[in-house]
C-alpha cells in the first residue's frame, strides 16, 4: 500500500462520510471528478516541463523533477534551451553543429504563416459565409453540396498535384506558396453561415433601405454582430496554421523559410536518443497559442454558442 493508495483513500472517504448530506457529497464528488480530469490532462505537460530542464544523463532516472536534494547543474540545467536557441546539438567535443539561422527566424516564419493565413482565411470565410446565409442565388444548393463533398476528400491525396502546381507557379519554398492554396476553407464558410443565419433579416433590410451597399452591410453591419464567431474562428485557424506540419514539410525547403514544427522535427532522428531539444521546442511553441487562447477564452466560447451550436 503506497502513498498513492493512501491519497486515493483520503479522496474517497469524504464521499462516504457525507452520505447524510447528498448535495454536499455530490458537489464534493464533482470537484474530485473534475480535479482528476485536470490531473490527467496536466500530467503530460508537467512531465514536459520537467523533461526539458533535466540533464539527459538523468532523463529516465526520475519521473518528473529530481528531488530538491539532488538539484545541481549536473541534473538540471538550461542545456536544452541553449541548444535550441543556438540551433544545434552539442557534440561530445563541445561544439555546436549550428545552422546559421537564428531560432527567432523560425518563430517569425511561423508567425507570418499563422497570422497572415488566419487573417486571409477569416476574410474569405466570413464573406462566403455571409453570402450563403443571406442571399438566394442560382447554383446555391449545388455550391453547398460541392462544399460538403469537398470536406470528405483526404487532403493528403491532393498534395502532389498541388505541389506541382505551386512549383510551376514558382511559389515553392516560400510562405506565400504555402498560404495561397489554403486560403479558403469550406469548413470556415459553413461556420460563418451558421453565425450569420441568426442575424435578423429586418436588420439587413433596414440597412438596404438606408441605401447601404452590399459591402457596407457586410462590413459595418453584419461583421460586428458575429464578432464572437470571428474570434472563435481566428483561434481555430491560428492553431491549425501554427501547428501544421505535413504541408509545410513538403513545401518549404531552404532553412530560412522553415516553420517551427518542421524545424523541431529535425531534432528527432532514428540515430539519436536525445529528445530534450525537441521537447524544449515543443514547450516554447506552445506559448503563443496558449497566450491567444487565454486572452480569447470568453469570446471563443460565445462564438461557439452563436454559431455552430444553435440548431
Amino acid at each position, binding site marked *: 500500500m503506497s502513498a498513492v493508495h493512501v491519497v486515493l483513500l483520503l479522496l474517497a472517504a469524504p464521499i462516504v462520510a457525507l452520505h447524510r448530506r447528498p448535495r454536499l457529497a455530490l458537489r464534493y464528488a*464533482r470537484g474530485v471528478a*473534475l480535479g482528476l480530469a485536470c490531473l490527467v*490532462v496536466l500530467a503530460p505537460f508537467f512531465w514536459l516541463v520537467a523533461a526539458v530542464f533535466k540533464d539527459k544523463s538523468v532523463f529516465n532516472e526520475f519521473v518528473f523533477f529530481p528531488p530538491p536534494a539532488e538539484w545541481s547543474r549536473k541534473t538540471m540545467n538550461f542545456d536544452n534551451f541553449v541548444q535550441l536557441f543556438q540551433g544545434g546539438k552539442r557534440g561530445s567535443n563541445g561544439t555546436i553543429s549550428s545552422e546559421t539561422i537564428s531560432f527567432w527566424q523560425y518563430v517569425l516564419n511561423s508567425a507570418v504563416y499563422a497570422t497572415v493565413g488566419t487573417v486571409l482565411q477569416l476574410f474569405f470565410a466570413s464573406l462566403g459565409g455571409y453570402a450563403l446565409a443571406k442571399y438566394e442565388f442560382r447554383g446555391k444548393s449545388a455550391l453547398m453540396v460541392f462544399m460538403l463533398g*469537398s470536406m470528405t476528400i*483526404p487532403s493528403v491525396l491532393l498534395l502532389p498535384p498541388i505541389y506541382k502546381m505551386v512549383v510551376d507557379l514558382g511559389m515553392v519554398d516560400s510562405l506565400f506558396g504555402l498560404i495561397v492554396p489554403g486560403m479558403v476553407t469550406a469548413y470556415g464558410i459553413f461556420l460563418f453561415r451558421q453565425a450569420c443565419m441568426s442575424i435578423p433579416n429586418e436588420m439587413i433590410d433596414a440597412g438596404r433601405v438606408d441605401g447601404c451597399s452590399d459591402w457596407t452591410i457586410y462590413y459595418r453591419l453584419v461583421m460586428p454582430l458575429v464578432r464572437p464567431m470571428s474570434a472563435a474562428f481566428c483561434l481555430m485557424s491560428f492553431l491549425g496554421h501554427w501547428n501544421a506540419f505535413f504541408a509545410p514539410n513538403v513545401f518549404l525547403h531552404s532553412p530560412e523559410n522553415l516553420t517551427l514544427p518542421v524545424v523541431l522535427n529535425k531534432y528527432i532522428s532514428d540515430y539519436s536518443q536525445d529528445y530534450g531539444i525537441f521537447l524544449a521546442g515543443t514547450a516554447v511553441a506552445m506559448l503563443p*497559442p496558449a497566450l491567444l487562447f487565454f486572452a480569447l477564452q470568453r469570446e471563443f466560447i460565445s462564438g461557439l454558442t452563436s454559431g455552430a451550436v444553435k440548431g
Partner: protein
Amino acid sequence: MPLERSPPKPARPKPPVEWAPYLFLAPYIVLSAAFFVVPFFSAAVLAFYETNGPRTRVFVGFANFRFLLHDPMFYTALANTTAFACASVLLQLPLSMGLALLLNTTEGRLKGFFRLILFSPNLVGQIFVGILFSVLFAPRYGLINRTFQALFHWGLEERWLGNPRLVMPAIIVTSLWVWVGFNMVYFLAALQGVDKTLEEAARIDGANVWQVFWHVTLPSIRHVVVFVVITTIIGSYQLFELPLALLNSSSGRGPANSGLTLITYLNELAFESGDLGLGSALGWMVAIIIFAVSIVQIRISRVLED
C-alpha cells in the same frame, strides 16, 4: 386554418440580378477551382492508372480497385480506422458530455479555469502530441507505465506501442487526451442555452438525474450533438498525423500493422511505395466510405429525432 386573401398588391418590378453573392463567393470559387478541383481531378483520374516512377503511367481501368478489395492490408486499415471511429463516438463523446455537465454547474472563475485546463491539449500540434506520447508510452521508464505500476503494481513492462493488441488502445488514449476537451467546449456552450425551467419542471415531477438528462437536456441540444458526432466520425476516418507521429519508428504502421489507418495506408502507398495510382484509388474509396457513413449517420439521427 382558413385561407386568407389579402388585397392584391401592385406588381413589383423584378429586382436586378444581385452580383453581391457571386462576388463574395468568387474568391472561394476561383481558389477552390485552382487548388481543389484541378488537383482533385488529376488525382482522381490517376486512380485508373498504374504509375511507375515519375513519368510512366499505364491505364489499367479498375485493376487498382480490384487489388485493394483483395488486399488484406486495406481491410486491416479499414478495421483499425472503424474501431477508432467507434471508440471516438462511444468513449470520447460521453466523456466530453460528462465533463461538460459537471462543468456546467460550476460557477464563474473556477469554470473558466477548468475549461482552460481541459482544453489546453488542443493547443499542441498533433505531431508534437504524437511524439510526446510515444515517449510517455515507453516501457519501463515512461510516465504511463510508471503510473500504472504505482497505482496497481502492474504494467511496468507493457509495450503499448510494441504489442499489436495495445497499439490501437494507445492511439485511442492519446486521442482522448487531445479531443475530450475540445468537444467538451462545444457541449458546454450548447448546455448554456438549455432552458433551466424545463429541467426544474422535470425534477419536480419526480424524474431522477439520469432521466432529466436523457429526456430533457439531451433533446434540447440534439443539434449540437448531431453536429459533433458527424464531425467526430469524419475526423476519425481521416486520422493521419497522430498515428504517424506516435508510431514514427514504423512510419505509422505499428507492429503487424495494428496502427495502420486508412490515410496512413494511403500515404504509404502513394508516397513511400510511389504507387500514386493505387493511392488515388484508395483515396476514392476513403471518400466513398466517409460519405456513406455520414449519410447513415444523418439518417439515424433523423430517425432518433422522431
